[in-house]
């Protein structure tokens, strides 16, 4: 059964799993960054409009 | 401009008028017709120059090279499908015309094929001979190019309609069309390869024909939708 070395294929197998994790994390991070930046932009504008009233 | 329904020309009249108009315009600018053909010949020449020209290599790569060259030449000519009309405003008339837009899109695609696909078909045997293609394979080449250029022109008209007037539209059009064109390329080039090595090639021809028929039936509607969207 697979151990850490995976019969010599270790680098291949583990790099794939690591890359998968990276893709998940990357997508999550990008979505959050976009959400936060959009939110902040709107917040600035809305609060400015509110302040002017 | 037609204001009275009784004066409306029939569908066929509108179709024919559009084709005639485009053919006349192409006649006045023969460069537009010749350029893709010359491009096809020149690109075909690039491959032997770059990769070596031993007879076996030529025979082996001939179908693929010719098909890629035809694909690129068609792609190049697609840019101008709607461009001239867009720039001088006649495309506006097409979009608001009482004639059904899909039919006009089909008419333009037909005229385009007559001035780019058909010349390619006629020139291809000459270039194919330089690749030492056997006679039967050349026949298959012409048939596959026939269905292939029709399909490419139709699918390409959708892409051209989507990218009218866009910044860097040329490159974008190629990027959009190429993945869609890959099955046609695969079917066309490999079918000719099979013919060149005396294997059965009929399956490829049937599929190309089916693709062309499907494109004829569906693409004009998509192109018309794309034209309307581009015009909003």
């Amino acid at each position, binding site marked *: 059964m697979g151990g850490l070395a995976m019969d010599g294929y270790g680098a291949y197998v583990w790099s794939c799993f690591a*890359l*998968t994790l990276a893709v998940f994390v990357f997508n999550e991070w990008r979505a959050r960054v976009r959400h936060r930046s959009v939110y902040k932009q709107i917040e600035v504008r809305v609060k400015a409009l509110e302040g002017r009233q | 401009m037609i204001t009275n329904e009784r004066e409306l020309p029939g569908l066929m009249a509108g179709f024919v008028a559009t084709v005639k108009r485009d053919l006349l315009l192409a006649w006045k600018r023969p460069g537009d017709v010749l350029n893709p053909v010359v491009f096809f010949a020149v690109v075909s020449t690039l491959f032997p120059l770059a990769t070596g020209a031993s007879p076996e290599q030529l025979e082996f790569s001939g179908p693929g090279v010719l098909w890629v060259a035809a694909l690129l030449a068609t792609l190049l000519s697609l840019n101008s499908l709607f461009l001239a009309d867009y720039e001088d405003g006649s495309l506006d008339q097409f979009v608001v015309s009482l004639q059904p837009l899909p039919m006009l899109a089909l008419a333009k695609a037909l005229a385009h094929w007559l001035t780019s696909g058909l010349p390619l078909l006629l020139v291809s045997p000459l270039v194919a001979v330089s690749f030492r293609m056997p006679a039967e394979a050349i026949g298959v080449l012409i048939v596959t190019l026939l269905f292939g250029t029709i399909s490419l022109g139709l699918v390409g008209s959708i892409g051209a309609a989507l990218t009218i007037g866009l910044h860097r539209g040329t490159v*974008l059009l190629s990027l959009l069309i190429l993945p869609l064109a890959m*099955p046609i390329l695969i079917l066309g080039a490999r079918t000719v390869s099979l013919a060149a090595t005396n294997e059965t090639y009929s399956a490829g021809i049937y599929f190309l024909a089916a693709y062309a028929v499907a494109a004829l039936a569906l693409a004009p509607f998509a192109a018309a939708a794309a034209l309307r*969207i*581009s015009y*909003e």
Partner: protein
Amino acid sequence: MWNYLHKMASPPHFYRLAKILIPWLVLPGALLIAYGAYAGLFVAPPDYQQGDAFRIIYVHVPSAYLSMMAYMIMAISAGIGLIWRIKLAHAVAAGAAPVGASFTILALITGAVWGRPMWGTWWEWGDPRLTSELILLFLYFGYMALRNAIDDTAKADKASAVLAMVGAINVPIIHFSVQWWSSLHQGPTLIRQGGPAIDNEMLYPLLAMIVGFTLVFAALLLRRVRAEVLYRERRTNWVRELILSPRGDG
């Protein structure tokens, strides 16, 4: 039921609902992936031909499957947006594209890495799945490029919707033609078609991974679409009230 669907199509409702749904997707998804990865890496017996290298299947197959599913979601929601003029559908399509493209890239890289010990090369044109996956990536790029090229959001939505639908129709054609092309010279393939029946110890972790990936993908998509919706609706009242409300982000 139509009332419910109508409500679903409302951006503010989606925005709130998605936020609630995300943890319910991520947790089970992550658990399934954890089980699938553990069992796939350590419990499943090594393949008699490929040894331990075959374990890459546990990430390659789910990502390839998702890359396809994401494209279908993109094309279908774009179509719904175009035909029934539902703005939210367009937002879903816009959100699905980058996530789908990244899974496609993942499938391609894991496929190439898998291929290296198997075929000795980093790329095998003869493998129909890899080649189809590459063409799919080009389709994604074309879609995103078209969206980027058009400034007006509504126009970009509609134009890319036409492109997505044309692409979706072509996907089976692409698969078929690449399959035919590769069968002509019998290249090596990553996954044996119709090979010996895969035994359960190998299969269950794979199924778990597929389902787990799908759940996590759904969560990623929802998060992405939430951001997209917020941007598109930035000038509306409901967003304004959301920002001003004491709890802030809904």
